[in-house]
């Protein structure tokens, strides 16, 4: 008869220690998961990511915040990056590239070949996964016809009926460029460098502005409830998403044109599970996923092979010089807050 196996207290303690400290690492090592930092746009975690997770058997851990805060988090963890992929606006990606916290996209992202060069800036340091439309949004009950021109916002009938987004948010470039365009008679795509004249013109808009807000969800809610008529300027990711859900809002299509917001995605330098990050970005650019992006985020796809879902179309969008914007953003924020926002 075999004697029962005896486990000494020392063996038991060593085994317990291994189980407690080692097991989670073993499990974590086997988990196909990536940490993605990006915008807090509706549709990402509830529609787009589950599709990618199922298709590539990966778990996406997502943190939604604005691009500059996202960059600050990556900078803070530069020595030991935790994020694999970052989704930010181009002006912030310009800064990320300068600080060497993102890496050039590799050729393994095969769908890059079908994206035009303008949508993969700096020789594919990052790629635009879509181009949301940015102009202004309006309450469609108060303004069933919308506005024909950005300049209509200066009309006295909108006194205390406009909420502007803070210049700290990239989308605030839309009213600034529109104002600069009016002041200098230059088309929108050439007006950004005249932003000083735009500030002067925006000062004339102050009587119509009830608030300059950096809280986009609150501003959106006030637009939908009729507290204001115009919101300058969220992009189509928010406005048309909410319109599709039945909110009385719509995207302005002014005669001067609509700006393309650059929604970029990049690999974080030294981030964990780079292979999954590459698969993630490649999937974002897949023509089928791009079609899903078009109807979920109401944004123009960047893969030229994408077939747009029926009923969805986009106007020709106006691209801005985002590097110039990145270089001058702090000065724009300072002047905007002193001369437009302040009491």
């Amino acid at each position, binding site marked *: 008869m075999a004697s029962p196996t005896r486990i000494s207290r020392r063996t038991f303690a060593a085994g317990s220690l291994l189980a407690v400290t080692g097991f989670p690492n073993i499990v974590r090592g086997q988990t196909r998961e990536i940490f993605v930092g990006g915008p807090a746009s509706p549709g990402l975690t509830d529609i787009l990511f589950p599709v990618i997770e199922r298709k590539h058997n990966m778990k996406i851990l997502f943190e939604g915040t604005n691009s500059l805060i996202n960059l600050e988090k990556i900078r803070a963890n530069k020595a030991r990056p935790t994020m694999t992929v970052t989704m930010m606006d181009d002006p912030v990606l310009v800064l990320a590239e300068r600080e060497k916290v993102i890496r050039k996209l590799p050729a393994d992202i095969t769908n890059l070949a079908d994206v035009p060069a303008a949508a993969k800036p700096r020789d594919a340091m990052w790629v635009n996964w879509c181009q949301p439309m940015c102009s202004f949004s309006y309450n469609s009950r108060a303004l069933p016809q919308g506005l024909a021109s950005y300049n209509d916002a200066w009309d006295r009938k909108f006194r205390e009926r406009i909420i502007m987004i*803070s210049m700290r948010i990239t989308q605030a470039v839309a009213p600034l460029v529109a104002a600069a365009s009016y002041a200098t008679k230059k088309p929108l795509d050439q007006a950004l460098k005249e932003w000083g004249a735009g500030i002067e013109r925006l000062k004339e808009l102050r009587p119509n502005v009830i*608030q300059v807000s950096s809280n986009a969800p609150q501003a959106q809610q006030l637009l939908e409830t*009729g507290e204001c008529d115009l919101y300058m300027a969220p992009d189509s990711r928010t406005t048309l998403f909410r319109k599709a859900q039945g909110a009385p809002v719509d995207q302005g299509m002014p005669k001067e044109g609509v700006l393309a917001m650059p929604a970029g995605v990049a690999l974080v330098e030294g981030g964990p599970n780079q292979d999954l990050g590459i698969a993630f970005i490649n999937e974002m650019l897949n023509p089928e996923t791009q079609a899903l992006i078009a109807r979920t985020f109401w944004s123009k796809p960047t893969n030229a092979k994408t077939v747009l879902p029926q009923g969805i179309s986009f106007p020709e969008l106006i691209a801005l010089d985002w590097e110039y914007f990145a270089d001058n953003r702090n000065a724009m924020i300072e002047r905007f807050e002193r001369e437009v926002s302040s009491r």
Partner: protein
Amino acid sequence: MTLARDDLAVMPAAAPARWTFDAKALIAVPGLVFMALAFAVPVLMLVGDSFVDRDGFSLAGYRKVLGDPYYIGIIGNSLQLACITTAVCLAVGYPAAWALARIRGAWQVILFALIFLPLTVSIVVKTFGLTIMMRRDGIINFLLVNLGFIERPMRLVFTEFSLYFGMVNVFLPFMILPLYSVMRMLDPRLLDASASLGAGPVHTFLRVTLPLTMPGIIAGGTLVFSISVAAYVTPGLLVGDRFMTMSQVMAKAYLNIRDFQLGASMAVIMLVISAALILASSYLVRTPGGERR
């Protein structure tokens, strides 16, 4: 007046400070270690950052803040916000604390719940709730219109009224709690004695009640002022960028324009304001004889 002075011992007088070791002080060690790690070290780093720019030692951050009328105005906004919030909290909180200290039984429980349960709700939720209340189709406009005070809904959202309303809503319990703790220790016989000596209610309040509850007023005022001068979420949500505060400048400096020296300098100035207030209040709660109440 003699009556009040003689009975100031409603709170035990502390023994004069002596620099001898008391083993009981060791109990405070875990708390002190935690505060050193969680508060003192980051504050020291912040102070260090305020004196350093890319080229080394520099006072540029302080020059920018204190030499620019725009930033002086923002410091003024924060002080105005803190002063008005503290004053309104005191005016509203004093009678509430008095009632809380004097009533007994179920009503005391109900009052306690009404005053302190809101503390369990997130400031963001409370402030968003206030925005909904203050919309043109909100409950406040509904009541004002239906009670005949105004003919049609008025704009309340994004006004300074909504800001102060929201600030008092958030910070009132921090005024009531210290006031209540002092008032409940106040011997009611002192008020009877004052009345029996011929003092009217106003005279009794001014010469007996008010002096005896001054430690609560100073503690509550200091607490509310200190936290409201640093308020970030409530002003940001209720009045936005039109009413910039010191905290908003710090957030902008660190998260947007990445001027860390500007953010650190503004933070140190805020710290100095709060520390000065706390030191002043510590001085004020001393009795004329130099003993702490």
